[in-house]
């Protein structure tokens, strides 16, 4: 890659301290995001999947700098996010101020109703972002109305309405318009369609795809719905307990996932295709305690292939082939796992 990736995330860490509980046992820490690194190229859609509590939403908020990371860096177009002045020292391009970040990356939230201030009209809500950044009112309003049109809501009928007068699907369209008002390059969609009825969901998804083409956007699409992720994504990233377990092109992941967790998730997908009926057993065991994750590979307590090496050493996210990376001892020759030996032999 000669060009710099649009978004680079390096070793992001976020820990949440637990307050001292009833019995003052305090000091426990939830490792919500524990060393996450990935890149996003311009124009693609990266899907992020995982169970509740795996750290997807926290990652999104860390990217947006709505919460501060404990460690790690986020670079947009090669520029690190942070107070700009200091960065120029090392000769790297000047850092990105928060303000600039806001104009580059925006987010659409899950709860369409809670995302909109019930006291403001739709137009005011959409125009808020541009106004904050200095756009004069008339221009901001015009942009808001234009965006309403682009998301399929007639401004003449909708601009003056209030959130409670719209349906869920319409509100989500408004949220999308609001995210686009600042003309970002990247849009993070955090479970943006999860709360909608299926038919509405399909419409909004198609709208998102159209908008991406029209505006040349890059998407980060977070969802627990694997079908939807398959439909929209170019690449997919699977998270488990704060770590990435697998990341690769959507076709590769869905057809032949390498990590046992991914396979288990995919096998649980409901599907109409009789050829894809699964007889594999579901995931065994309960999701472990995020405060006290298992040693070594975090998935080993539920993995049917766990061996000693899995408890001893944590598998790192390493490449298996171009664009595909997986964090599992089975996939890497020489790791000590019995299955890995077979790989080495085959190679």
């Amino acid at each position: 890659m000669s060009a710099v990736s649009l978004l680079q995330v390096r070793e992001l860490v976020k820990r949440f301290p637990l307050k001292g509980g009833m019995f003052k046992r305090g000091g426990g820490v939830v490792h919500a995001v524990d060393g996450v690194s990935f890149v996003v190229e311009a124009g693609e859609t990266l899907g992020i999947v995982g169970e509740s509590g795996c750290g997807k939403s926290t990652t999104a908020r860390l990217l947006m700098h709505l919460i501060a990371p404990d460690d790690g860096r986020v670079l947009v177009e090669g520029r690190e996010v942070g107070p700009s002045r200091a960065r120029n020292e090392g000769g790297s391009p000047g850092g990105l101020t928060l303000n600039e970040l806001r104009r580059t990356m925006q987010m659409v939230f899950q709860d369409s109703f809670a995302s909109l201030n019930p006291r403001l009209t739709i137009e005011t809500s959409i125009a808020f972002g541009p106004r904050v950044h200095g756009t004069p009112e008339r221009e901001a309003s015009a942009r808001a109305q234009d965006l309403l049109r682009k998301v399929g809501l007639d401004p003449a009928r909708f601009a003056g309405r209030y959130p409670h007068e719209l349906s869920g699907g319409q509100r989500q369209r408004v949220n999308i318009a609001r995210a686009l008002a600042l003309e970002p390059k990247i849009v993070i969609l955090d479970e943006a369609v999860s709360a909608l009825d299926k038919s509405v969901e399909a419409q909004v998804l198609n709208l998102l795809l159209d908008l991406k083409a029209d505006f040349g956007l890059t998407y980060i699409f977070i969802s627990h719905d694997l079908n939807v992720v398959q439909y929209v994504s170019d690449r997919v990233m699977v998270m488990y307990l704060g770590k990435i377990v697998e990341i690769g092109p959507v076709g590769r992941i869905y057809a032949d996932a390498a990590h046992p967790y991914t396979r288990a998730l995919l096998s649980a997908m409901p599907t109409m295709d009789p050829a894809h009926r699964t007889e594999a057993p579901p995931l065994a065991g309960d999701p472990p305690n995020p405060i006290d994750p298992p040693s070594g590979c975090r998935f080993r307590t539920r993995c049917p292939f766990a061996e000693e090496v899995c408890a001893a050493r944590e598998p790192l996210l390493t490449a298996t082939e171009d664009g595909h990376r997986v964090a599992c001892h089975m996939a890497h020759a020489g790791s000590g796992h019995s299955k890995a030996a077979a790989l080495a032999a085959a190679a």
Partner: protein
Amino acid sequence: MIAYLLKRLGLVIPIALAVSAVCFSLVYLAPGDPLSAIVPSDASRELIEQLKKEYGLDKPIPVQYAIWLGRAAQGDLGTSIATGRPVASEIGKAIGNTLVLAFAACLVGFTLGAVFGTIAGYFNGSWVDKAVSALSVAGVSVPHYWLGMVLVIVFSVILGWLPAMGAGEGGSGDWRWDGEHLKYIVLPAITLSVIPTGIITRTVRALVADILSKEFVTALVAKGLSQGAVFFHVVKNIAPTALAVMGVQLGYLMGGSILVETVFSWPGTGFLLNTAIFQRDIPLLQGTILVLAMFFVALNLIVDIVQTGLDPRIRRA
């Protein structure tokens, strides 16, 4: 559970200290010397200085506070300027009277409130409910000192059934548990009970209506449980909260009895407070406010602990 108790007690101490500091410093809010009330205006400088030393007013304020607090912790609240008797004993006598009154009012308030509230909750939405709601709103809107006057007008002046003032014959300050004295407590207790009745009625009504509308009650009835048994379930669920509210109300009644006690010349702490204010009896004022405030803090603490103890959700944590 023990750990929770200790933690809770630990939290109370800073509040109690802060409260005592506020009590102490109240007296210094007024412009002018605290001493000016008792000292004749033509007193010589030496006399004033001497009095200051005697009352410890020549030391800096934080030191005075520390001394006062230290003595108070040992039960010595100083000497009343007006009567010359120890403040602690004055309060001791009065607080008994107020406790009796507050308890009586609380009992009446809780009983009536629970009954009315439960009825209203069961008949949610009907005219019974509306009537009870109207009554409880009236209960919290009525100035209770005025109500006291009205009750005196009706039952004392016009009907002559009950005495208008005092805790005993001839407006005496001693109260005993006997038939003779019982009639003196009736009007003050009823007057004081109006506000807690209103509040408890509202609370109980909301709780009962809420419980009855919950699905688990429907499930119980579907299983064939009799109405009586359901009622028992309802009571079990609302008892902790209702008791907690009553406990807090008791605290308010103790602290807020001054108005009713003034109307009926009931010899309690409220009456004492009144006297202390108008005679600018500093030690008595500080001591009374301190005792009442501490009582309120202690009561809140007890209510908190009991409620937590009764709530199985927290207990098992």
